[in-house]
């Protein structure tokens, strides 16, 4: 069984933010990078399926620059077998459809039995790359999967809808599934596994024609604070006393 897992190196903002000169993105100096949380669940699910099948391969793919190899190494340290990274400068800050086009070339070349993505990335939250990728690979798909069982030519999945309602769906395989947090408990990589992951192969490729972008960021900005919260000052004791007063007033 060959499973392709798409991962992304995501950026998280701390307390401060500055923008790039063209204001189209955040200055990378203000971002902390890590593997996207959803992708660790997708990786874990792939590893479990490979191990249950007894043989096979988990291939981690990403559209990202050299720094994005950190995210891939994390997935490799969890137990994935090898990686393929695709990158060109056009992909910097790209929309999810463009990213899917870059990933599709790589995934197609692998002829996988299954493709797993995270539901969304924490920095862009488009929840779109997986379904777009499925279309470009002409594969069936399901989004927001919280349970997955493979048998014969189908995957039986739980799709988690709003309000906690679950749709049980039967998906023909091969297919693309976007994996929701909580589906499993992603393993921690041991120090030894992290060391070994350094030795695993990451192939680097350039994408072909990516076509016209589906969207472009005009500018980013810090959202104006609305009315905003009235901030309670003082030490923890004073804060607690004010909270008690407010609760008594508002629940009366």
């Amino acid at each position, binding site marked *: 069984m060959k499973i392709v897992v798409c991962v992304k190196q995501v950026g*998280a*903002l701390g*307390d401060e*933010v500055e923008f790039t000169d063209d204001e189209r993105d*955040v200055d990378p100096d203000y971002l902390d990078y890590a593997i996207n949380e959803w992708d660790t669940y997708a990786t874990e699910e792939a590893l479990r399926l490979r191990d249950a099948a007894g043989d096979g391969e988990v291939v981690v793919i990403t559209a990202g620059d050299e720094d994005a190899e950190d995210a891939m190494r994390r997935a490799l340290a969890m137990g994935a077998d090898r990686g393929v990274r695709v990158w060109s400068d056009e992909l910097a800050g790209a*929309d*999810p459809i463009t990213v899917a*086009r870059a990933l599709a070339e790589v995934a197609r070349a692998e002829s996988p039995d299954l493709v797993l993505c995270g539901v969304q990335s924490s*920095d*862009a*939250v*488009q*929840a*779109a*790359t997986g*379904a*777009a990728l499925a*279309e*470009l690979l002409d594969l*069936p*798909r399901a*989004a*927001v999967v919280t349970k997955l069982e493979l048998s014969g030519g189908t995957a039986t999945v739980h799709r988690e*809808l*709003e*309000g906690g*309602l*679950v*749709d*049980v*769906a*039967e*998906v*023909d395989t091969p*297919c693309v599934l*976007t994996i929701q*947090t*909580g589906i499993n408990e992603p393993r921690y990589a041991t120090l030894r596994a992290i060391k070994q992951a350094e030795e695993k192969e990451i192939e680097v490729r350039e994408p072909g024609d990516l076509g*016209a972008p*589906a*969207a*472009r960021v*005009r*500018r*980013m*900005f810090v959202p104006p604070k609305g009315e905003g*919260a009235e*901030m309670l*000052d003082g030490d*923890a004791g004073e*804060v*607690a*006393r*004010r*909270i*008690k007063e*407010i*609760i008594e007033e*508002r*629940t009366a």
Partner: protein
Amino acid sequence: MSVLVVAEHIRGELRPVTLELVSAAKELGGPVAVAVIARDPAALVDAVNVDGVDEIVCVPVEQEEFENDVYQHAVETLVAERSPRLILLGFTVNSMGYAPALAAKLGLGFASDVFAVRDDGGELVAERAFYGAKVNGEVDFPGHEQVLLLLRATAWPPAEGAGSATVSEASVGAAASRARHKDWVEVVAGDVDITSADFLLSVGRGIGDKENLEQFQELAEAMGATLSVSRPLVDAGWMPGARQVGQSGKTVKPKVYLALGISGAVQHLAGMKTSGTIIAVNTDPEAAIFNVAHYGAVADLFEVAEELEKLY
């Protein structure tokens, strides 16, 4: 500008986001057409015939419930026949399964989780958040004559008032459905109903360890509150889904919502932002929860909890 809204329904009920999409479409001037893709679309016509809708397009299909190939084929056919400038869907789990695919296939302009749209001299500009909602971005779609947007639920008010839409029918033919609905599973009802509580004490990732949960259960009890949680605690298996506030959990509207150590992911805020009074305690002064809170404190939640314990 011409807008095609795709109605969302589950188990025979129209989802509220559909009427919010109508409000957004109306703002842009219209004409507004709403597509109802269902086995029996006529049954939903009354629910979508609200002020602002010019046309309701009934699209009969074989499947009773949502299946992504069926919806994709139907919307693709409508887009080819009607050439709308803008296609609006809810940013929902169902849309996530086919809207990006349609955008990739047809080469449409695309953005999701959009909470504001404007017509800037004929050019569409959408607003959405990036980087944990600490930053907003304006997105445009150069070169695209047609744009598909997934709009954030609750970002627009629902359209109201009786409508006078014309009703038409479109035949789209059958689609090979490669992902088929089989069954429903309801969230297991817990020992409590957090949606009926007047006062919720809600905790999130900030509590750190499972061992710390008990302390907050006791605090909630002492304060006369019901304990609720954000998603990460349910994902970790610390609390049952019945206690979860947010888009994939429960939508709550207590008199008081006291959030300790909850940063305020968009999905969480969607489930509690209409609460009467929101009080948030978080160590991060930039946490998104402070944007919806009425009262906030930048403080260590354990220290505040300890002080609250002394007061109750």
